């Protein structure tokens, strides 16, 4: 019998205890993996190569203020700019006030927006149909699936910001991975319906030629409008999206504190189990020592047991998290969950590494105590 199989056998000798410990650890690691994935999506994910070339220009003071239409041509004249599209947030209500029915509705320019958002794939004939119909709409395929929309269907939108209820015809659908459940319609249609909105846009989205030009072009845009009545704030699309996350509060500290609590919980659970397991084996340890097992190998055996147990629990937790996120991002229940969220291989590895480390630390003290047992005392021990 090798040391390895000895460890494995011992790990599962008290099946109930091992299983309970594993379940406990797996739930903690499920949470840890979820938190790490959220962190990665918010702060580490560089996004698609196309998204990395997009920048957003908005009013310096507040997103609530519209920018004049002539800003668009000024942005277009800056070297490095490929395409500029006006964007205006119309609202997110659909049918009723329920959050489950909310999706973003944006007014934009059908001619130029597809050039900026080149990662949204639209069939050529549909795109042409959308560009030709002023009251047409472009929707996400997933969104269309949710509501059973077909090309040519008519829908009516409502907005808390604009006193109109535009009636739109679905002319085109786009696919993008991960899905962006949104609807786009012609800003001209909105301008015609709302007098005071003429010649304005909520913000401008710009495509630059290479990712390296994001910073200099952003600076150049803000510099252009430095002395204009409305100064601008230009940043990468990712920074723009992150600014919304930031309004939720100190998200980083929030995630970190939950992770801390989870890791500490695993440590306690695992240490508890090892203490119980080793305590019941005092006499056995003495026998092993009599047989000639050294302190080191006993120590290695017990620590190995702890690591095996927590890694096994960790694997279930990571798998559960992967499944949960997969299900969440594809279910219509998921509101406000970034569609790009997924458990990557490095995240999985990191989770398992945490499990292994915690298992190692938790096994050390009880194992050390066990390895130190005096043989005679141990043999005499009545467990």
């Amino acid at each position, binding site marked *: 019998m090798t040391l390895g199989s000895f460890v494995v056998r011992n790990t599962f000798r008290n099946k109930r205890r091992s299983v*309970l410990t594993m379940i406990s650890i797996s739930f903690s690691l*499920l949470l840890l993996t979820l938190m790490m994935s959220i962190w990665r999506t918010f702060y580490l994910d560089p996004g698609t190569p196309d998204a990395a070339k997009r920048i957003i220009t908005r009013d310096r003071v*507040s997103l609530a203020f519209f920018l004049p239409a002539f800003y668009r041509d000024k942005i277009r004249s800056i070297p490095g700019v490929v395409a500029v599209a006006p964007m205006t947030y119309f609202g997110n209500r659909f049918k009723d006030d329920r959050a489950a029915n909310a999706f973003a509705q944006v007014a934009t320019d059908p001619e130029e927006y597809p050039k900026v958002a080149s990662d949204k794939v639209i069939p050529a004939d549909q795109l042409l149909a959308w560009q030709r119909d002023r009251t047409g709409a472009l929707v996400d395929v997933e969104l269309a699936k949710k509501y059973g929309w077909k090309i040519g269907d008519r829908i009516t939108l409502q907005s808390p910001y604009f006193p109109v209820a535009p009636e739109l015809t679905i002319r085109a659908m786009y696919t993008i991975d991960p899905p962006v459940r949104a609807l786009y319609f012609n800003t001209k249609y909105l301008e015609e319906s709302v007098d005071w909105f003429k010649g304005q846009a909520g913000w401008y989205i710009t495509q630059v030629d290479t990712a390296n030009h994001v910073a200099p072009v952003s600076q150049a845009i803000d510099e252009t409008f430095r002395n204009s009545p409305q100064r601008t704030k230009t940043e990468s699309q990712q920074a723009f999206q992150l600014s919304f996350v930031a309004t939720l*509060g100190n998200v980083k500290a929030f995630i970190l504190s*939950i992770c801390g609590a989870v890791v500490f919980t695993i440590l*306690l659970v695992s240490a508890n189990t090892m203490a119980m397991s080793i305590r019941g084996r005092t006499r056995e340890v003495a026998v092993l020592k009599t047989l000639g097992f050294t302190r080191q190998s006993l120590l290695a055996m017990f620590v190995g047991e702890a690591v095996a147990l927590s890694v096994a629990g960790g694997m279930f937790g990571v798998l559960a998290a992967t499944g949960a996120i997969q299900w969440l991002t594809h279910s219509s229940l998921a509101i406000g969950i970034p569609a790009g969220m997924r458990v990557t291989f490095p995240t999985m590895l990191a989770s398992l590494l945490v499990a292994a480390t915690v298992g190692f630390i938790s096994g050390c003290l009880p194992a050390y105590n066990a390895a130190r047992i005096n043989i005679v005392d141990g043999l005499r021990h009545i467990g």
Partner: protein
Amino acid sequence: MAIPISYNVRNLVLRKGLTLMTALGIALTVTTAIFLMALIAGLNKAFVSSGNPLNVLVLRKGSEAELSGGFDAALYPTLKTLPGIAKDSHGEPMTSGEWVVVIILPRKDGTGEVNVTVRGMMPDGLEMRPSAKLVEGRWFQTGQREVVVSKSIRDRFSHANIGDSMEFGKGSWKVVGVFDAGGSAYESEVWGDVNQMASDFDRQGGYSSAYLRATDPISAEALKNRVSDDQRLKLEGMIEKDYYAKQTSSGAPIKVIGIVVAFIMAIGSIFAAMNTMYAAVAYRGREIATLRVIGFSRPAILTSFVLESLLLALLGAAAGILLMLPFNGMQTGTSNAVTFSEVVFALRITWQVAGFAILFALVMGFVGGLAPAWHAARQNILNALRG
């Protein structure tokens, strides 16, 4: 006959290490739950304590927040002459036309920029909000580019001390005073003169909202209906208190996250507690058999072990509450779902929160202890005595 509780207490004390570690595990779960519940309690407090039941808020019909409102200033004189409005200190009807905008301010701790509500008001606006007390400096003066900030804005954002200049609109605004709004939603606002603000944001000739102070609750209701029912005005009246009560939906994201996190952690803790209790039962096989021989019934054994598990959980709950108490009153902010601006609130560990935490721990202890206790009660006496 029941087994005395001191038996369980002494057993927990006997196995100190195990008890402590399991209780700490439960404590951590309880801590997380308290943290999230205290956030929600604080947020609800901010909205529920906001607004005066005598103030009637007037918005454009169809708009739900002051930010998305906006109506013609020509309508304002009509509002001022409506019956049932209280008199201000000058004997005039107590009303205030206001401009509300959202500006971006950088957080002091460098964790990003946040939307903050700026409110331009008429002099009566201050009179209508007696809950806001000046704690430093003076109120802004009409016709001056001056603002007063709430205490929490001063604490959380840079350039918000008395004497500092805030940059927004068409230039800088001098901070002349700091007010305390007692944890209400005003706690997240910056106030100034309405005309100055409107001209800075090119919104002269309009107001985003108007406030009317009614003489009593009955006339407040009448005033609200009168404004809403007048077809020419195309305005909507609502009691200010109701307006803020509706915004408690801002806590929804925290609530959802809180429930998910607490639930997952609770399941982990339940299994850990189960483990501990199974071990307790296993160690005491012979002892339990002896108790049975003496004459304690199976239900008595079952109850005793469930009680022991509950005691363990209670210990965890107490530790969790103690761990969280230092954070009581800590200020934080989140995005208001209705106005998209930051709402500042304090963590509040209320009696309800503490009570709920204890209940939460007891549920964990009960679920975790039931199976092991059942196991203990079902043991065969003879086998156990021999083991």
